[in-house]
């Protein structure tokens, strides 16, 4: 190792230290905790081997939560990846005026806290007396009691989260699309290629490096963002219909104080995400275009 490389490693050190302290150490500790029965307050931890993992596999709630997790991923991908992609394309390439207005307007909610957003939407979307319900009432449409209805509850909670996430994803994708060579688009336009085709054949492949980033961020970060509205509005209910793997791990640890169970669930969740990432690398990454 020569001097130069040592210098580089030294430069890496601060971020590595932070990573070790806040990511790897908690991860290792979670693995450790997943073999114990502990209530987080008591001074003793009881070693139980793989019992926590066995409990999770036997528990029907785990499967409900797992299915919910995938529904969340599906809805989040639609709301926070596909739709912002299309919006970014339309605003950058198709629209001629008011571009800056749209950019600002769509990005603005991203700076507001999700806690505030959740409380705001609880009020706005109150199915009995909220403003949305009142307006729908004029057309004789009644709102479902979404906080207590399976299915609806996930969709609405995703909507609240996307209010926050949408803007950031949109801006990132917009920048990527903006970076696509204008000559290509102009040439396609001269040949009267329809906008849909420009998007599919030119924009999508050329911005795919950013696209894949947003895709992963949507899934990984989106599920974590979901935590806030779930915690504030439904606490995972009704009967776990709005819980997902991440919220459920929190619920087990900080509501029921089953720390070991929760740690085991987190580890299993991580494994599932790991497999998803592997699949992504194997099948999606190949088609991605990197400029450099």
């Amino acid at each position, binding site marked *: 190792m020569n001097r130069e490389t040592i210098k580089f490693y030294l430069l890496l050190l601060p971020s590595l230290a932070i990573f070790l302290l806040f990511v790897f150490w908690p991860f290792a500790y979670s693995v450790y905790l997943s073999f114990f029965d502990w209530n987080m307050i*008591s001074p003793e931890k009881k070693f139980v081997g793989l019992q926590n993992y066995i409990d999770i596999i036997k528990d029907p709630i785990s499967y409900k939560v797992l299915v919910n997790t995938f529904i969340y991923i599906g809805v989040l991908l639609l709301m926070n990846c596909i739709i912002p992609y299309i919006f970014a394309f339309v605003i950058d390439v198709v629209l001629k005026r008011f571009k800056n207005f749209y950019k600002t307007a769509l990005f603005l909610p991203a700076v507001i806290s999700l806690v505030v957003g959740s409380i705001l939407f*609880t009020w706005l979307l109150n199915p*009995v007396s*909220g403003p949305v319900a009142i307006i729908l009432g004029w057309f004789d449409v009644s709102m479902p*009691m979404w906080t207590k209805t399976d299915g609806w509850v996930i969709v609405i909670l995703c909507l609240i989260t996307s209010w926050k996430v949408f803007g950031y994803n949109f801006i990132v994708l917009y920048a990527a699309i903006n970076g696509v060579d204008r000559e290509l688009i102009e040439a396609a336009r001269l040949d009267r290629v329809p906008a849909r085709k420009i998007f599919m054949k030119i924009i999508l492949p050329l911005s795919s490096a950013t696209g894949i980033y947003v895709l992963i961020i949507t899934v990984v970060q989106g599920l974590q963002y979901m935590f806030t509205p779930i915690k504030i509005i439904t606490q995972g*209910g*009704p*009967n776990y219909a709005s819980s997902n793997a991440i919220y459920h791990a929190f619920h087990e640890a900080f509501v*029921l104080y089953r720390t070991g169970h929760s740690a085991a669930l987190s580890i299993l969740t991580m494994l599932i995400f790991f497999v998803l990432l592997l699949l992504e690398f194997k099948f999606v990454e190949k088609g991605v275009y990197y400029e450099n």
Partner: protein
Amino acid sequence: MKRFISLMLVLLLGLLAACSSDSDEVKGKGKGKTKIEYWHVNAETLGGKTVEELVKRFNEQSDTVEVVAKFNPDMYKGLMQNLQAEAASGKAPALVQVGWSFKEYFNENFAHTSPQDIIDKHFPDDKTFFKDNFLPNVLELAQTKDGKQIGIPYSLSSPVLYINRDLLKQAGLDENGPKTWEELKTFAKTIKDKTGKYGFYMQEPADNWATQALLESNGARMLTDGKATFASKEGIAAYELYADMITKDKSALHIGWDQGIQSFIDGNVAMAYTTIAQRSNIQDNSKFNVAAVNSPVFEGKPVRLPAGGSMLAITAKEEDQQKAAWEFMKYLYSVESVAEWTKGTGYVPPREGVADAEEGLKQYLAENEMMKAATSQMDGVVPWVSFPGKQGLQAEQLMLDVRDQILNGSVSVEEGLKKTEEEINKLLK
């Protein structure tokens, strides 16, 4: 990088500040006064200012004791965790607030002294202080299952029925509200039929507080000799009365707590069953003629209303600390202090002689009619049942799960309660 550095600096400063505030609270004798710590959970919005005010006044009038109030974030659970850490290092505060759900846990895991023992030893004049000033059923709240008095109730709340008099009048009903649950059901139906608005909402937070009030008031018991027994004939009947309002009559609302209370305040629900702690929120925000009345009863049966809140327990180890703790505790339970506490928090006075005393709450209650609904039903207050043992919280959760299933109509009351009771008893074994 610059931002990162400034962020780290802020964090560092925060840490430093936390350390220095800790070292301020040195225990032991300083300047001749015995210094004790009082641990509470009352954040600024939850009566924290009253805590500080009471401590300040006590310190001014006492020549022997100096109290330092220490706020514990994250409510009673947070306080328990901090107490654990403190105990691990061999120390303990003098006086702590213990939430009802942690009562048994506290008793089994922490060294504490019954206030009565300290009184018997050092303060013969106060021997009958508790007997004279507290209702026996209120004192019972702070007893363990084997009848040991480990603390004294301090923050108390009970469920009451809030009514929208305008809506009741509009539906041609008695504007003083229903007296019984049976009556409440027909009231709700009439309101739905006559006005199109919802008749009733019962709070649905993540606990079984209101459920217990409903079932036990009909003669059921959540727990008998350490076994769940809520799926008795009476329990099922009571739950059915409530569930039918939602699933059959469609006269009651099944919705989250915030949205439910909000709908009541907006005038879309005529009656709401929730804690007296919601009083100021409801009183300040509703634009109609609002009132609070006693919790409804079942025809011919006594009410049993679980108490919310916490008790005060003495964890001081040394004698002088224990003595000081009682002196401060006695001050907190004086009529004036309790009155102050009620005004600052919305809790019900735990002791007697406050409601009608001139220096107590006489004038306050005259101005805040709604508070009377809770102060006048104190004789019906019972301990809030927490399922025993390590699996208790899981049992609690099963009760919540079945509530969602029943109110969604996916399972019948009888089937749901019986199945849950069985599962809980399997857990508690």
